C-alpha cells in the first residue's frame, strides 16, 4: 500500500488526519514531499474555522484572538516553492505554529489580551518569531490569553475566555490557555507560550498537552510583552514531548538583544526526548507539592505515573523543599512589583489605545490616567496597585526585598534537593480544569492554581508538564518535571520516557481520547481564508 493510499484509507478524512498528525510526523512527510505545507496550513485553518468560533461569541474553543490565514498560506507556499527548488530547509520548515498574543509579531496585531493594545500592529518581530520565520514555519495566528498574562484561566482576556477542548464549560487554564487549547483541539500542531508562574505548564496540565518552561534565559525574551522580567520565559506547547523539544530547539539559544539571555547554545533536546531511557535516573518527589491542596484524583494519577517510572528503572526518592511554602507569597510580591513598572509604558502617548478625559482639560497626565483607566482590566489594575504599593518607599525592604530573599531560599532548596535527585517531580496543578466563572470572584483560589509551578519561575529552573492520565471526572491530569538550570534536556529525557510508558498503557496519545468538538460558526477572517 502506498503512503498516500494509506492516508486516504484511514477512518478520518485527509484534512482531519493532517491536523491530528504530530509536528515530527508532519516534518518528515513535508521533507519527503508527501504533503505540501499549503495543505497542512489549509487543514489547520479549516479546523480553526470549524471549532474555534471567536472569543466572546459564547461558543467554540476560542483559542485564537487573531487568525492570520492569508499570511500563513503565503508563507506555506513560499516554503513549498523553496522545497521544490531543491533548497536546503530547516527540519520544521512548513510546519505551522500558533503564537501567544503576548509575543510581538511584525505586521500582525498583538494585544496581549488587552483592550489597551487593541489594533496595535508591531513594527518588529520578537527574536523567537524571527527564528520561527527563518525556519520557514507559517504563523497561523495569535492565541488568546489572560490580559498581559495575568491569570490562570484565560477568563481575564479582555476579548472573552478560551474553552477547554475536553469540556467547553471549563477553562483551559491560563494565562496561556489559548496556546494549550489550540494544540489540544488540533487547531495547531505547535504553539508558543510564555510562563511567568505556570502559564505554559498549568494550561498544558488541564488540556492534556505538553508544555515546557525552559531555564530562565534559554529562549530570548526580546519581543515578549513583559509582565515580570525576572520570571517571564517563553516556551513550547505541543501534543508530545518530542514535538515540544523540536519547537524548543528552533527558538532557543543566545540572543544578544536580551541581556538576560544565556550564552549557551540550545542543547540536544529532541535527542533526549527520543532516548526513552530512565534507568538509574534519580527522580525526586517534592514532598511540599504532593500533599495538602492537591486533589486525591490528581494524586492518584501522579502516583501511578511514578510507579511506571520505578518499574522502568528510575530511582524514586522523596525530597523536601520547605521554603516552597512561601513561594506563592513571594511570587505575588515580585511579579506585581515588576509588572507595575513594565506596564507603565501603556499610557496612550505612543501606541495603542488613547482615551481623552470626557471633561476637563486634556493634559498628558489626564490622558494617561483616562487611557489606563479604560484600557486595563480589573486583574491588571489589581496587580499594578499591589506592585506600586510593594515598591513604595518604606515598604520596599519589607515586601520586594523580603520576597527576593525568599527567592534565594527557594533556589537553595532546589540545589539541596538536586543533590539527591536528577529531576524533581510533582503534579503540575492541584486540580483538574475548573468550570468557567468558578474562581473569578476569588483571586486567591485562582492564584492557588499555580502553587506547584511558581517555584521553578522563582528559581529560574526549567519545568515541563505532560499528561499522566485522566481523573475520574474524565479530565486530564498534568505531571510536572523540574531540573537544574541549564539542564533542560533532563526534562525531555524523563518526559519522553514517561510519555512512551503511558502511551503503551493507553494504547495511544491521551488527546486521541478527547471528545469530539461541536462545529461552530467561523469568524469572518477565517471563513474567507
Amino acid at each position: 500500500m502506498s503512503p498516500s493510499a494509506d492516508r486516504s484509507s484511514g477512518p478520518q478524512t485527509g484534512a482531519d488526519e493532517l491536523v491530528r498528525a504530530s509536528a515530527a510526523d508532519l516534518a518528515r512527510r513535508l521533507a519527503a514531499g508527501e504533503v505540501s505545507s499549503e495543505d497542512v496550513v489549509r487543514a489547520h485553518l479549516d479546523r480553526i474555522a470549524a471549532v474555534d468560533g471567536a472569543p466572546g461569541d459564547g461558543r467554540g474553543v476560542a483559542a485564537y484572538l487573531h487568525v492570520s490565514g492569508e499570511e500563513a498560506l503565503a508563507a506555506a507556499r513560499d516554503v513549498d516553492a523553496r522545497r521544490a527548488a531543491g533548497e536546503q530547509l530547516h527540519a520544521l520548515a512548513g510546519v505551522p505554529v500558533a503564537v501567544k498574543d503576548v509575543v510581538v509579531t511584525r505586521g500582525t496585531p498583538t494585544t496581549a489580551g488587552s483592550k489597551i493594545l487593541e489594533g496595535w500592529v508591531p513594527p518588529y518581530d520578537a527574536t523567537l518569531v524571527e527564528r520561527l520565520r527563518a525556519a520557514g514555519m507559517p504563523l497561523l495566528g495569535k492565541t488568546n490569553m489572560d490580559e498581559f498574562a495575568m491569570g490562570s484561566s484565560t477568563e481575564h482576556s479582555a476579548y472573552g475566555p478560551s474553552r477547554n477542548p475536553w469540556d467547553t464549560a471549563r477553562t483551559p487554564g491560563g494565562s496561556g490557555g489559548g496556546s494549550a487549547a489550540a494544540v489540544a483541539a488540533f487547531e495547531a500542531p505547535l504553539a508558543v507560550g510564555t510562563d511567568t508562574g505556570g502559564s505554559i505548564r498549568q494550561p498544558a496540565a488541564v488540556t492534556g498537552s505538553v508544555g515546557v518552561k525552559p531555564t530562565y534565559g534559554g529562549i530570548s525574551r526580546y519581543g515578549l510583552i513583559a509582565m515580570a522580567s525576572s520570571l517571564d520565559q517563553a516556551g513550547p506547547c505541543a501534543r508530545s514531548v518530542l514535538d515540544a523539544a523540536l519547537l524548543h530547539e528552533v527558538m532557543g539559544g543566545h540572543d544578544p538583544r536580551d541581556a538576560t539571555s544565556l550564552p549557551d547554545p540550545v542543547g540536544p533536546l529532541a535527542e533526549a526526548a527520543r532516548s526513552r531511557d530512565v534507568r538509574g535516573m534519580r527522580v525526586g518527589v517534592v514532598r511540599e507539592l504532593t500533599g495538602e491542596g492537591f486533589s486525591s484524583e490528581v494524586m492518584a494519577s501522579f502516583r501511578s505515573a511514578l510507579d511506571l517510572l520505578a518499574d522502568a528503572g528510575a530511582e524514586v526518592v522523596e525530597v523536601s523543599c520547605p521554603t516552597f511554602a512561601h513561594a506563592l507569597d513571594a511570587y505575588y510580591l515580585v511579579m506585581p512589583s515588576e509588572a507595575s513598572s513594565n506596564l507603565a509604558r501603556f499610557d496612550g502617548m505612543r501606541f495603542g489605545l488613547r482615551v481623552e478625559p470626557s471633561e476637563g482639560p486634556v493634559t498628558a497626565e489626564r490622558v494617561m490616567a483616562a487611557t489606563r483607566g479604560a484600557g486595563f482590566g480589573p486583574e491588571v489594575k489589581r496587580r499594578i496597585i499591589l506592585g506600586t504599593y510593594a515598591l513604595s518607599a518604606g515598604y520596599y525592604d519589607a515586601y520586594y526585598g523580603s520576597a527576593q530573599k525568599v527567592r534565594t531560599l527557594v533556589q537553595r532548596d532546589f540545589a539541596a534537593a538536586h543533590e539527591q535527585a536528577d529531576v524533581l517531580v510533582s503534579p503540575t496543578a492541584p486540580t483538574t480544569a475548573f468550570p468557567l466563572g468558578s474562581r473569578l470572584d476569588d483571586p486567591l483560589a485562582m492564584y492557588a492554581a499555580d502553587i506547584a509551578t511558581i517555584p521553578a519561575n522563582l528559581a529560574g529552573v526549567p519545568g515541563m508538564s505532560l499528561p499522566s492520565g485522566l481523573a475520574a471526572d474524565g479530565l486530564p491530569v498534568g505531571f510536572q518535571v523540574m531540573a537544574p538550570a541549564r539542564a533542560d534536556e533532563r526534562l525531555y529525557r524523563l518526559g519522553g520516557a514517561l510519555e512512551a510508558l503511558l502511551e503503551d498503557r493507553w494504547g495511544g496519545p491521551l488527546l486521541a481520547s478527547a471528545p469530539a468538538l461541536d462545529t461552530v460558526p467561523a469568524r469572518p477572517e477565517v471563513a474567507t481564508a
Partner: protein
Amino acid sequence: MSTATAPAATGGEPLVAYDDATARYDVVIGLEVHVELGTATKMFDGSSTAFGAEPNTQVSPVSLGLPGALPVVNRTAVEHGIRIGLALDCTIAEMCRFARKNYFYPDMPKNFQTSQYDEPIAADGHLDVVLEDGTPWRVEVERAHLEEDTGKSTHVGGATGRIHGADHSLVDYNRAGIPLVEIVTRPVTGAGARAPEVARAYVAALRDLLRALGVSEARMEQGQMRADVNVSLRPSPDAPLGTRTETKNVNSFRSVERAVRYEVSRQAAVLDAGGSVLQETRHWHEDTGITTSGRVKSDADDYRYFPEPDLVPMTPSRAWVEEVRASLPELPVARRARLQAEWGYSDLEMRDVVNAGLLDVISATVAQGASPAAARKWWGGELARTANAREVEVTALPVGPAEVAELAGLVESGRVTDRMAREVLEGVLAGEGTPTEVVTARGLEVVSDESALVTAVDEALAANPDVAEKIRGGKVQAAGAVVGAVMKATRGAADAKRVRELVLERVGGPQA
C-alpha cells in the same frame, strides 16, 4: 537690618544685596552635572546619537519603549563612565546595577528611567580647580553614575515655550536613551562669598576634563552638559545644613555663577523675613538672570526604585579598569603644570593665559616653532585685543597658530621689526595672505642690502654737513638726526641700530 529689595526683573522675588547676604549667612553649594557621552549609539540600543537629525528618526523599539523591547548596555558608555571615574580619582565599583526610576512623563518612553541609583559605577573622588586669582580649590565628588537621557518636549502655543499656557506639546525621542553620566559633588562648604566662583570654576574644570578624556564634546549650549545647582544657606559654618533649592539645567559657566548668586540673595531675603526656604526645584531664566519656583520636592516624591530586572549586574574586571587607567590622557591640571615648567611662565602669566582660554592655541603655536614668550605676547596681546574689539573668541579670528608662529619667526630672524610685524598681522587679519605674503605685498621687509643703506646714509650726511661736524667733535648723540632721516627715506624698512652704526662709520667718528 533687612535689606530686601524687589529686583527689577519681572517675576523676581525680594533679594538681599549679595555682600550683605554672605556677611550674614554661610553658603553651601552642590553641583549635579549631566554629561551626554559621545558614543555613536545609545545607552541601551543601537540607535544613532548624532545631534540635529529630523525628530523621531533616531529611534528603535528600545528607545521608543515599545512593548517587548529590552535594553542592552553599551560597553563604550560604561568604559567612558570608568574613564570619568578614574580621572576624578574615584573608586570604580566591582559590581554595580542599574535601577528603574519610575515616574510618568511623556518624554520618558517607558515611564521609568534606567539609571544607576544606589550602585554608581564610580564613587568618592575629587576635582581640583583653580579660581580666577589662582587659589586652588578641591571639590569632593560623591559619585558618577550612568543613566539614559529623556526625549525632548516642545510646548507649542504658550507665550514662554513652557508647558503652562501651551495648547499642545511635541516630543522628539531622538534624545531618549542617549547615554548620560551624572557627576554629583558632596556639599561644597567653606567657600563663603566665593561659592559662585567655585561653582563656575568647577563646571569649567569639569568641561575641560571631559574634553581631554574624549568622552564628550560637553557643549553646554547644545545641552551636552547641563548643571543642576544646589544652594542652601545657614547662619554659620557650625550650623546644620539649611534647606536647599535645586536650580535645574543651567547651561553656561556664567549662568552657573549667576544662579548661585541669585539664590543666595533670594534665600537670604526669605530667611531675613523669618520665612523658611522651600525644598524645590527651580527654573533658571537666562534672559532675566533669575530663578523661579518649579516643582516642590517632598517626601511624597517616590520613584519606587528597584534593580532593573532586564539587565544583569555589571562587574567591570580589574584588568579592564587598569587598561582604561593606563589609556587616560594627560589631565588638564597635570598638563598645565608641565606646560608652565616647559614654557617658563610665571604663575601670574600662566593664570592669565588659562583664564583667557589661550592654553591650547599657545601650545599649538609653540608646536609650530614659535618661542613660548612670543606666542604668549601675540595671543595675549594684539590678538586678544582684536578679538575683544570684534567681539569674537580669539580662536574665531582668521589667524591660527601656524600664522602666528610664522610671524614670530619673521621677527626672530630680523626680517621684520616688531612694529612692522603688527602691520603684517593687520594684513593677515584683513585676509591678504600669509605673513610672508603680506611682507612681500606690502614691501615691509627690513632693508638689509648694505650698499643701498650706505648710499642712503651718505646722502643723509651730505644733506646735513653740520651733523657730521658735531659727531667728529664728539657729540655722538647728534647722529640721531641723520638716523631719522635715513629711516624716513627707507620708509622704516631699515634696522635703526645698523643705520646708526653706519652713520658713525661713514663719519669716521670716535665710535668707528
